């Protein structure tokens, strides 16, 4: 055996509890990668839906247009008159609806300006059987059942109709909202299952090392001293697992984004992720490491407290 020249030159490993070789490590790492993968893909979905929803409700959903089809009569003046009657009927109805702040019919000038690109200048719209429009301003965040509104409107005047794109959008928003809630539930589930897995792995590891732990205790180690070693190891493994998960998640998110762009054209592109969203997704390995550390720490402390 070699003579040790200077004891202070020697490197010491300080892993008192041999957590590195635990058989539950692989279980933990695989579980955390899967969790982080699912979590980040779902989170991306939630964030995308959120940004889509906020885009819409800000710009599009605040207003609404009601269209009154022109009555086509041989007598032009009479048809215009009749169209106006229908417009007034619709107007009066709209003013009684909850959630509608203001309903203003567009006057001739406004209509003319709207139609100029198609019809050119110098055309008197009074001579033409064009539809009349009512601009409806909604109370912010009003909960309006557009389907019911459209039906009632049609009852009152068969010529009046809600702008159909808006109708479709409102159904889409309801769907997206439902999807978002589902995703939030899924996020919560993933989080609790992971926490359960970490608790299970920590407890089985504690059982495995109970002899070393009891030795440390009798040497005067406080629970925190032991819990820290577990927390450090669990955090490290979870960070690695998280990196693997995110490495699979990022291409998946891009692929899903590409796919949904193709499928739905213009609407889903609004569901893009901001830099803030991306950075919160990319910080998930760190986040998972911190959650895992805390879970392991608390589990060890709680379990040890039952011993003497």
């Amino acid at each position, binding site marked *: 055996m070699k003579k040790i020249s200077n004891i202070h030159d020697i490197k010491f490993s300080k892993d008192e509890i041999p957590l590195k070789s635990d058989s539950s490590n692989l279980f933990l790492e695989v579980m955390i990668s899967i969790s982080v993968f699912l979590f980040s893909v779902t989170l991306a979905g939630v964030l995308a839906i959120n940004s889509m929803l906020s885009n819409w409700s800000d710009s599009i959903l605040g207003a609404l247009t009601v269209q009154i089809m022109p009555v086509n009569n041989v007598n032009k003046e009479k048809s215009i008159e009749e169209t106006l009657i229908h417009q007034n009927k619709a107007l009066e109805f709209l003013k009684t609806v909850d959630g509608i702040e203001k309903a203003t019919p567009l006057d001739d000038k406004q209509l003319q300006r709207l139609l100029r690109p198609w019809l050119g200048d110098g055309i008197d719209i009074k001579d033409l059987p064009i539809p009349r429009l009512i601009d409806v301003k909604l109370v912010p965040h009003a909960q309006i059942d557009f389907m019911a509104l459209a039906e009632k409107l049609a009852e009152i005047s068969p010529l009046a109709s809600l702008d159909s794109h808006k109708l479709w959008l409102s159904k889409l928003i309801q769907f997206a909202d439902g999807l978002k809630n589902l995703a939030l539930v899924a996020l919560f589930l993933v989080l609790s299952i992971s926490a359960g897995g970490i608790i299970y792995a920590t407890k089985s590891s504690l059982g495995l090392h109970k002899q070393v732990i009891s030795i440390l205790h009798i*040497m005067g180690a406080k629970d925190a001293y032991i819990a820290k070693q577990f927390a450090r190891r669990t955090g490290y493994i979870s960070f690695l697992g998280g990196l693997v998960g995110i490495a699979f998640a990022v291409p998946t998110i891009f692929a899903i984004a590409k796919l949904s762009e193709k499928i739905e054209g213009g609407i889903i592109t609004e569901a893009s992720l901001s830099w803030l969203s991306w950075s919160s997704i990319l910080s998930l390995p760190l986040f998972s490491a911190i959650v895992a550390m805390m879970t392991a720490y608390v589990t060890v402390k709680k379990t040890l407290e039952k011993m003497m």
Partner: protein
Amino acid sequence: MQKNTGNKLASIIEMQNVGIRYGHGPEILSDIKLSLKKGSFHFLTGKSGAGKTSLLSMMYLSQKPSRGTVKVFDHNVNFANRDSLAMLRRKIGVVFQDFRLIEHLTAFENAALPLRIMGMEEKEVKQRVKEMLEWVELDKNMFAQVSTLSGGEKQRVAIARAVISRPELLLADEPTGNVDNYIAPKLMNLFVELNKLGTTVVIATHSEKIISDFSYPRLNLENKNLRIYYPNDKIEMDTI
């Protein structure tokens, strides 16, 4: 009989009406009364299975009595919280009958454990552990993994670990059962030296030779009870 109860500070360990049972079994020890004064040295004897290890385990705070009160360093162990128990344990050195070393660590790291847990500076740790292991003649095996050591070598690591922090109370359970007749007296002298520096010592042993070589009082466990025998063979029924 009760003459010393007022002098609390001088008592390192006090037991009153202590009983121990495991699970729903009968009591292993009954009505133990004991008061160990600071700086005392006792042997602990008794047949195999008499309860020596059980009695010691209350002293090193790894077990609470089933009934009665145990005070260690004047703290009632029934009411102490976990962290203060940990602080008390740092003042106690223990040599276990089955060593209880951390098998995957080296002899050095095992012996360094109490100092590192106390948070001692690494430089001093290294110096002290090296000297200690050289003293118990483990210089060659200092950096060998404990699992590769011989029985006697393990026992010496266990002793080194118990005394490295110069504890106020030293409890040794059959500390020379696995070493040869050359090193055993040397280790016993280590305990005697520590005792001279103020450490209270209790040594459980079966070896008649050791007991007769040193003239210290003997705590004997018999029929679940504790009796003290002094070297001059005078028997006292109560230990307080």
